[in-house]
């Protein structure tokens, strides 16, 4: 479990990093942020990048701020940052809830939000957040800057719209309106494991009825996504066990679950139903922030 030989590059500015990436990506160069997925894969020699462009020394990427109604999360912001509410509204509260489901404490100390997004593991909690809230991913290359919507960004199992010479410099999450209720539930064999299925739900109550519902499912399909059928079931209805169960049923029917040696499609579908319903219940039970 010793990685194959590689060259380590340590740029100190984003310009330098993207220049290196333009040059080295075609020679099997990879970006190293927190390294919590890449480094173990290298130790198993399942990944053998010839070059690592280590962005941890780029101070400009270690930034988190609210700008123009959005939470802007730089590429070097660690998971642990979110354990305290990063903003006072419902988004900060949601992120503080979700982060506790991510792996284990040492991994949260080192791994990054943007690294999870770029890695796009199907069971990534942050990818589920990004999908649910329609995040924007900001990609930089020598060719310029572009912003990619979550819907276009996630393409499959560990596959994104990022080109090989593009560095994900930041992710922008829209702040949630005051009064938004949030719930997040996942099921994994043990605390900290990759979840077999997870669900995130947000909505407001407007005049006794569900408004702006968002329901996203992660872990069950090749990438996290919003489940429109479940959202439509909820929109405009008074909140309650029956409507939550109906939305959960719609979500279970809508997903096309991955199968693996432990989990067949039926099991994942059952978990999606349970997680969606529980996330909706949790959102209902929690005080609106």
């Amino acid at each position: 479990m010793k990685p194959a030989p590689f060259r380590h590059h340590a740029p100190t500015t984003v310009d330098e990093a993207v220049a290196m990436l333009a040059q080295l990506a075609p020679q099997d160069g990879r970006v190293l942020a927190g390294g919590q997925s890449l480094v173990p894969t290298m130790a198993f020699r399942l990944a053998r990048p010839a070059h690592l462009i280590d962005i941890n020394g780029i101070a400009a990427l270690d930034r988190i701020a609210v700008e123009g109604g959005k939470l802007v999360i730089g590429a070097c912001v660690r998971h642990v940052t979110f354990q305290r509410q990063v903003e006072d509204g419902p988004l900060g509260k949601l992120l503080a809830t979700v982060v506790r489901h991510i792996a284990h404490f040492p991994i949260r100390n080192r791994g990054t939000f943007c690294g999870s997004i770029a890695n796009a593991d199907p069971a990534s909690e942050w990818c589920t957040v990004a999908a649910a809230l329609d995040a924007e991913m900001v990609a930089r290359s020598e060719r310029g800057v572009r912003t990619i919507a979550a819907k276009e960004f996630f393409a499959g199992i560990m596959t994104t719209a990022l080109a090989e010479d593009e560095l994900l410099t930041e992710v922008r999450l829209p702040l949630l309106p005051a009064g938004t209720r949030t719930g997040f539930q996942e099921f994994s064999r043990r605390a900290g494991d990759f979840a077999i299925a997870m669900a995130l739900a947000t909505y407001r109550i407007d005049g006794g009825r569900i408004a702006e519902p968002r329901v996203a499912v992660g872990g069950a399909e090749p990438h996290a996504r919003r489940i429109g059928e479940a959202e439509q079931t909820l929109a405009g209805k008074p909140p309650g066990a029956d409507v939550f169960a109906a939305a959960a049923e719609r979500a279970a029917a809508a997903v096309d679950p991955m199968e693996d040696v432990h989990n067949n499609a039926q099991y994942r579908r059952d978990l999606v139903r349970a997680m969606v319903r529980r996330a909706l219940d949790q959102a209902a039970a929690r005080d609106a922030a």
Partner: protein
Amino acid sequence: MNAPREIDAIKWIGRSVERLEDPPLVTGRGRYAADISFPHQLHMRVVRSNHAHGKIVSIDAAAARALRGVFAVWTAADIADIPPVDFREGRIERLEPWRQPVLATDRVRYVGDPVAAVFAEDPYVAEDAADLVTMEIAELPVLLDARAEPGEFSPGRGTEATVLQQGYGDVDAALRDAHAVVELTLSVGRHSGVPIETRGAIGRYDGSRDMLELHGAAKVPHRNRDLLARMLKRPPSSINVHEAHVGGGFGIRGELYPEDVLVCVGALRLGRPVKWIEDRREHLICANHSRQQTHKIKAAVDRDGCLLAIDDEFWHDQGAYIRTHATRVAMMICGILPGPYRVAAYRSAGHFRLTNKTPAATYRAPGRYETSFIRERLIEAIARELELDPITVRRRNLITKEDMPYHLPLEVLGEEIHMDTGDYAALLDKVLAAADWDNLQAALAKRRAAGELVGAGLAMFIEKSGLGPSDGVHIAVDTAGYVEVVTGGASIGQGFETVMAQVCAEMLGVDYKKIRVVHGQTDRIAYGIGAHASRATVMTASATHNAALKVREKALEYAAGMLQAPIAALAIVDGQVIRTDRDAGASISLGEIANGLSPTSKTRGGREPGLSAEGWFNTEHQVYPYGTHVAVVSVDAETGGVTIERYIAGYDIGRAINPTLVKGQITGGFAQGLGGALYEEFIYSERGDPLSASFADYIMPTARETPKIEIILTEESPSPLNPLGIKGAGESGITPVGAVIASAVEAAIGMPGAITQLPITPQRLKRILDTK
């Protein structure tokens, strides 16, 4: 005043004193295998088969040999004179064809099978070079199920190496005449001990003294020395084996594996020390697996549920080779299955079958974890069949206190079963009282009625411990009054040093912190059987007791002369020999006595030099502690997840030298038992690829999944077979856990007989719930 005075001597046995082992371990001064290095050492990397079964057509190591920093690359042809890894307890000719070669010769038989060894200047280069070794393998059919039709192991030799059988009485007649016959098919999954420290071995040859050294794992250093001597054709006295600190043993670590042999042969032939540290993937696919079996079991019972006969047939999945333990686990299964119950007639037959998976051997509570699950499931099935309470069925079949000593014409570890002492029913009563069983059941029934899936389960078991036949200890007191206890035992993290020191301290009247305990060093003592089979405290502590008594006698005899007092009027308190018949007066310290007994001392007289003695403890039989565990679980109907709400472990230890250490053993064992019950399983693809080769896929319980348990530790049945009444503690925490949790889960889901397989994963449990 000649009135005898009260001696306020400190008692060391039975006290939960702090561990002597901890200071180096918690201050970063531990010395584990990876911490051991020698100048000019080479690093070894093993090239392993990626095929589960195939014929080796060719191996090309040219590119690896050409890599800068590579010293040598060996295949089987380079060590053709080294025989396969032999059995630990000596030759067993009929099983020899299935032994594992040090490097695969003509066939590979599991993914992970060692095919070549690279020796290089550093571990990175070694791994780079290993990548460059290519092999052509002609694939052969893969056999992954011990219940399937046996295949060919080698020309003229099948994959069923043997069928093990034990039994007594007329089973067929009992089955024919019984009131009822209950039959079950049950399986236990493939899992194993997974210590935090992977294996490691450092071989070193000192040509100036013609001594070969193997440094690394603890467990059975003397046995490994003797085994190496046989394989390498060297006299045992020219080999030293040294154990290091260990990050877990559990029976799987510390056996002699191909890699241990390779570092020794490498050191001998390459002229440089050779170091090998296993990585986690290697560990999960190469170190011994355990447990995997399927049983078809029948019980003949009368109308009261009394066991007239048990008839068991099982299929033991041995994996690719027979390793150092030979057929020990399967034979233990045949012997120990009846457990705490009286069974009028009994028969067990185990098909010992090779498959294309990692070889299997002992893991903490070998044979007992499996049979507790099988037997306790059977008891519950009998209760169901006869519409009786399962605890009533247990009570009707328990071996009683009056039956002791209870002899069975069955063997475990080569000895006939002689249960020495025990009052199983009394411990059952204590555990039921602690659980407040009737009220607990009422409360659970209420919760179930409200829609919750909650339930309680119980299992009873016997342990066997203290495997003999013999242990010797040498004790010497130095001139400062400090004591050295040299044992042939091994410290696998269980508190071995502390326990031996406590026993010695009690006998010698010295502070246990003044006692240094030596273990696992073959150059310090000629004999040793190490630490396995929950033997260390029973055997080595008894030998320590006997040796310390001799030292005590010698000290008192010398002191009597010096103090002009009868021996009967002397005591040793805090390292000083004092008179008990006077309030004050002269005393002499153990250090002064050691000085007085030095070879040059004028006061030594005709005595043998040294305040020292050797003591032995011999036994013909193991000792049989016992226990009862209770679990309360809740099941998540939507996910199949199981939560342990409460767990009670009742255990009779005979006599606890250090109760905290015993409880530590039980607590740690429980966590591993929980792993086998709910989480841990080595699984394979249809092609025989191991799919549990990392900690993301081999799932062990963490602190979050492991509840705090309640321990009821009793000392009602000390053993008459050793001077302190000791029974072993190492495996009791794990033994019944699969059985208890299975029973509790079944009660929770209200589906009697539904649980027939361990581990109870959420996916499996959900499938069961879906059939409700």
